[in-house]
Each structure stands twice: as C-alpha cells, then as structure tokens.
C-alpha cells in the first residue's frame, strides 16, 4: 500500500498545461483563463488565490468540463491520471478531449473528481430535499461505496448521508436531510454541499471557497475534517479561498493568479515569507489584521481590474504595479520562471527581458 502511494506520488494526479478558456460575448472576447499551468500532486493540498474575476472558478469548471456557455476551452490540456487499479501508476487522460456529456467524463465527474461549487444556493435544486439529491448522487456512483457491486438501496444511501451530515457538523442530521436548500442557513447549505462532494469518496476534491459562508469555529472543524480525509484516503485537494489565513493553514503549495494567468507559485512557506511577485506582496499587505488598528484605510492595490476585452500589453499587472521597471514591463510579457526552492514567478524583477520574444 505504502509502496503504491510512493510510486504514484512522483507523478502529478492532475496536470493543467497552458489552459485557455474564452467567452465569446457580443461585445467581445473575454479571455477568462489565459495560459494557466499547474500540477496537483496526490495527497497534497494546492491552494489557489487571486483577485476576484481572475479565472479561478472557470479553471476549476474547465477541469470538470462544466464551463458555462458560451465558454470554450480553446487551448491547452488537463491531464488526469486515473487509477489503473494495478498499483503500477496510471494512465493519463486529457480531460479536454473527452466528450462533455460522455460516459467517461460522467464517471470521473463527481466520483473521482468532485467539486464544491462557489455558490451552493445555485447548486441545489429547490424542488427536491438536499438529502434526496445526495442520495441520488451516491446511488449513481454506488461503486465508490460497494466496490463488489450490487448497488445501494435508498435507505442505505440515506444512512450514508446522515453520517456525512454529522461529519461536516450539521446538527440534527436525521431531520436536516429532509430539508430543502432554501430552509437552510448559508453555512448549513455550504456544509450540505461539502457532504455532497464527499459522498462519492473522490480522489481529487476541488473546493471553490468552501468555507466563506461558515463561521470560524465551524470552519476549523471543516478544515480538520478535510485534513483527516486527506490523511486517511490520500485525497488531493484544490482549495480556492480568499482567506489567506486558511491558505496558510491548509495548503502545501500555492498558486497565485492574476487576470487569467499564474503569476507566482510554490510551497506555502515561500509564498508567505519570500513572495517574489509584486501582486503576491500586495495581497499579503491587504489582509486586515486581527490585532492591528481599526477603522483606518487598509493598503489596497491602486487602479481597477483592466477591461476584460482590452487587456494591457506587456505584463498584465504592470498598470497597477508599484515596482514596475521603466519600459520593460509595459512592452514585454514575462513568463513563469523557476527561482529555486520550487518557487516560480512571472515578473521581470526576477527575469531578464531579453529572455522573452
């Protein structure tokens, strides 16, 4: 068992390479994801942070082939290594090549890769109870619970849901399974959503802001639950959150995105203590402190997000960057460059402009 884990651990579970997702709108083309690359290693937590609107959710939806119309994956690949079941590593499939509604994608979506979407209100149907919706998902992917086959009765599935609800800290789980999503508070709804995502024992859990609507004490419980899940089953997690405190406590590695691109990535300690990109540094400065001065202006990043149809040339961050270099940053596009210790940044402070075209 350990030998197998070791062997797989050398290979990423998921590799996103040069991913592009465009939305062709009447007014113009929105390049929501503009060349994103990163790896998710088995059993590790990858934290993703970035300005709101920078393409985090669209990237995650692309992984699951759930990008909304008129969004299109126009370039790049998303290689997922399925467990071949023989303990000898695994074959990679490019998810972008799978038909969206085909059997292969449906077997992966929900069962092997599960998503906790950003807006749990929109994720549950208002006409069925939350319990019924999760029971349905469990029965659909019954093999995750009954590998020997034979299916699951509604009652068995319901028992699983009650246990899951208890695990994620929902009180009175027996009653709550029969509630409609609109009867639950924001935090309860989000926990029900987490239970739904865990219901099929995924190998990769994509959690898009899973704790934003939850208070800090419950959040601490949910994070402990996710850590335990990861330890016990070796689940890999992609964790998107704006809460840098949660990133610091949860992530092994961090990806920082800006305007559809990765501007910095690396192990969590380097990101917090030796950030290389000016955007990462600005983000860290904007955190209101639990012990600092109150009711004073917080440091912000000057300027607003650029127009989505009219992106700045050169480094996408240069119009707002307080460390930009003369004419270089406005006219050349930096590339993600390895800077040692597993950390990489896309910035001319750390890269020669002559290296780019």
């Amino acid at each position, binding site marked *: 068992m350990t030998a197998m884990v070791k062997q797989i651990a050398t290979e990423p579970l998921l590799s996103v390479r040069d991913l592009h997702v465009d939305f062709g709108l009447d007014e113009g083309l929105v390049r929501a994801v503009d060349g994103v690359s990163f790896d998710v290693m088995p059993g590790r937590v990858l934290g993703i942070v970035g*300005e709101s609107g920078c393409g985090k959710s669209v990237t995650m939806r692309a992984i699951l082939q759930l990008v909304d119309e008129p969004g299109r994956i126009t370039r790049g690949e998303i290689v997922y290594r399925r467990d071949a079941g023989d303990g000898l590593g695994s074959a990679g499939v490019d998810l972008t090549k799978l038909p969206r509604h085909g059997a292969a994608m449906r077997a992966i979506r929900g069962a092997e890769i599960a998503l906790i979407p950003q807006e749990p209100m929109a994720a549950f149907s208002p006409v069925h109870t939350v319990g019924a919706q999760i029971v349905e998902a469990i029965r659909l992917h019954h093999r995750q619970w009954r590998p020997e086959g034979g299916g699951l009765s509604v009652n068995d599935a319901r028992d699983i849901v009650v246990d899951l609800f208890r695990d994620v800290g929902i009180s009175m789980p027996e009653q709550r399974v029969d509630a409609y999503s609109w009867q639950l508070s924001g935090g309860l709804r989000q926990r029900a959503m987490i239970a739904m995502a865990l219901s099929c024992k995924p190998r990769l859990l994509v959690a898009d802001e899973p704790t934003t609507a939850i208070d*800090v*004490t419950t959040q601490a419980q949910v994070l402990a639950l996710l850590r335990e899940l990861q330890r016990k089953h070796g689940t890999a997690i992609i964790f998107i959150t704006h809460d840098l*405190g949660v990133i610091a406590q949860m992530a092994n590695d961090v990806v920082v995105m800006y305007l559809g691109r990765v501007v910095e990535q690396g192990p969590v300690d380097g990101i917090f203590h030796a950030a290389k990109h000016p955007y990462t540094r600005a983000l860290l400065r904007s955190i209101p402190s*639990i012990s600092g001065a109150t009711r004073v202006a917080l440091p912000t990043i000057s300027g607003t997000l650029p127009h989505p149809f009219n992106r700045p040339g050169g480094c996408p961050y240069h119009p707002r960057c307080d460390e930009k270099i003369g004419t270089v940053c406005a006219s050349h596009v930096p590339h993600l460059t390895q800077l040692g210790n597993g950390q990489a940044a896309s910035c001319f402070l750390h890269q020669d402009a002559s290296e780019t075209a």
Partner: protein
Amino acid sequence: MTATAAPTTAANTTATPTMATSAKPLLSVRGLQKFFPITDGGFFRKTIGQVRAVDDVSFDVVEGETLGLVGESGCGKTTTSRCILRAMEPTAGRIEFRRKDDTIVDLATLTREQLRPLRAEIQMIFQDPFGSLNPRMTLFDNVGEPLLVNGMKNRAERMDRVAELLKLVGLRAEFMHRFPHAFSGGQRQRIGIARALSTNPRLVVADEPVSALDVSVQAQVLNLLLELQQRLGLTFLFVAHDLSVVRHLSDRVAVMYVGQIVELAVTHTLFTRPLHPYTAALMRAVPVPDPRVAIGEVTLKGEVPSPANPPKGCYFHPRCAFAQDRCRQEAPALREPVPGHFVRCHFAEQLDLATQAAG
C-alpha cells in the same frame, strides 16, 4: 416560554444593550423573535415543532455607527437582518426606526403600504449575490431598479447614477449592459453594494458583503464603506464571519449563539477582554495568515445545538469548557457587568478568558 409569548421586556432581569452615550439610536430592536414551524412530512404538513431562529434579540444601532453581528452559522444573523427589513415577518418584538424628521416608527407593525416610503432609507446587501440579482436583467436594470421604484423615471438620469455607482464600487460603467452571469462572485458582490447604495439609504444592513471578495478588493470595499460612512453619515448593521473584517469596520460588536445575543461590547474591548467563553473560542479559531504558526486545536468540538431543540440551561453549556451544574439548569440572562459590556454567562466575571483570546 411558549411560541406565542409576547416579547419579554423583563427589564429587571435582562439588560438591554443600548449605547452608553447620549447619541440617539437610529434603530432599536427589542425582544425580536422569529420562529419557523417544523412540519411533519405528511400531506397536511402538521406543525410538530418550532425553529427558534431568533429568540428575544435586543440591540441599538446609533446613527453613524457600525454594529457588527457575528456568530456561528445558523445562529440567526440573516433572519435578524431580514426581519429588520421586513423581508420576513417577525414572530414578535419591536423594530423601532428613527425617521429623518425624528419620528419613530415600529417597522414590525407597519403595513406593506406604510413601509413603502421607508424603502429608500433602509437597504440591504445580501449574503448570496447570485440569488439577489435578477439574472434576466442587465446591471443597469438591477442597480437602477431601486431608483425607478423610488421615482427616478428619467432613463438618462438613471444611467448617470448607475454609472456613478458602478464606479464607486470599482466596476466599469461600460459593464452596465451586461448580465449578472458574466461576472465573477466578487464582482457580483460589488454590484449588490452598488444597488444597495443607489437610493442614498441611511441604514444599510449588510449580510456578509465582503466574504466573496479577495483581500485586495475586500480592502477596497472596506475602505469604501468607511469612506461612505464618513461622507454620507451612513449607519451599518454589518453581518460577517471574518472577525478581522468585523473588527476592522465595527464600532461595537454583538455576538450571537443559537438565536440569542451572548455578548455585546465596544470592538476593542470585545477583542481584547471578551467575557463570554464562546466569544473567546471564536477568536482563537481565527486562522493566522502565516504557515509557520502551528495549526491550533479545534477550539470548539461537538455540534452546534439546533435552534429547534436547544439544550436546557445555557445554550452553550454542552460545548463550554467552564460549564458547571448551574449552567446545565438555569439559562443565564443578558447582564451588564461592566458599563456598556453585555454578556449572557453566569460566571463571566470569574473566568480567565483574556489569555485565550487573540491579542
């Protein structure tokens, strides 16, 4: 107390969290209750119990101040906010609002018709930006709707105002003709803020207005809210989970647990010298933005009690490290052991919590 009981005023046993200063409250909530019926699964939906979502909540919000409202999820923060706006009918209690001409109206008893002229003065920023914007309407219509409702019939005038509002919240005026689905979660939240500010309200009830935002945009919005408050004299009731955000923005903070206020104090005092064990546990649970700080123990174990079936005695006792026999028997009243500092705990003065709370 039965479900139909009148709001308990009981001034002799229960302190009412008012401001110590002479400043006039803009909003006074007294004995607010909201119960939801629990029905059986049957055809006739027979009522078999009550969810006591908000159970005897009282507080004041002084003109120009920000009162933060924090607490466990499901403790009744959104329900309290929605009752104040009468987006929901309170079961009992008074919601007194001071109008511009200094007359006081009880929002809880007004008819729909009587409420209409007050709509412009009280606005809400919703927790779920997706659910609160109409997906079939452009930003212009979404943000401009309150203006139209309040009598701004001229389209060009509305356009100017919407453009101004979008700029105010850091969005481009050109976005006006797009639909909500074309925006990210955080962008939608700013649209909700623009909409709430459109009618120049005096009281803004903000339910998690920045929780969908990244820290740099969050900082912009917080700065914006502070600036608007100073410039326009806005009053905020600010519901949020993020304690550092609440601490940053609020003059005073109320902490709720299972439908009740368990502590209320001036922000600095609450954060440095909390008196309630739940407040102290909340503060210790704030994740520190530094990976070198070891992950703390989960400070509160066990389940959140259900508001349909709260425990006997102090609602917090099953999870409280300091619980004693009295806590299991007798429900503590909201007391004011230090002027301006309200707490619902039998032993508040005797517990040593400060060392456990965040500096």
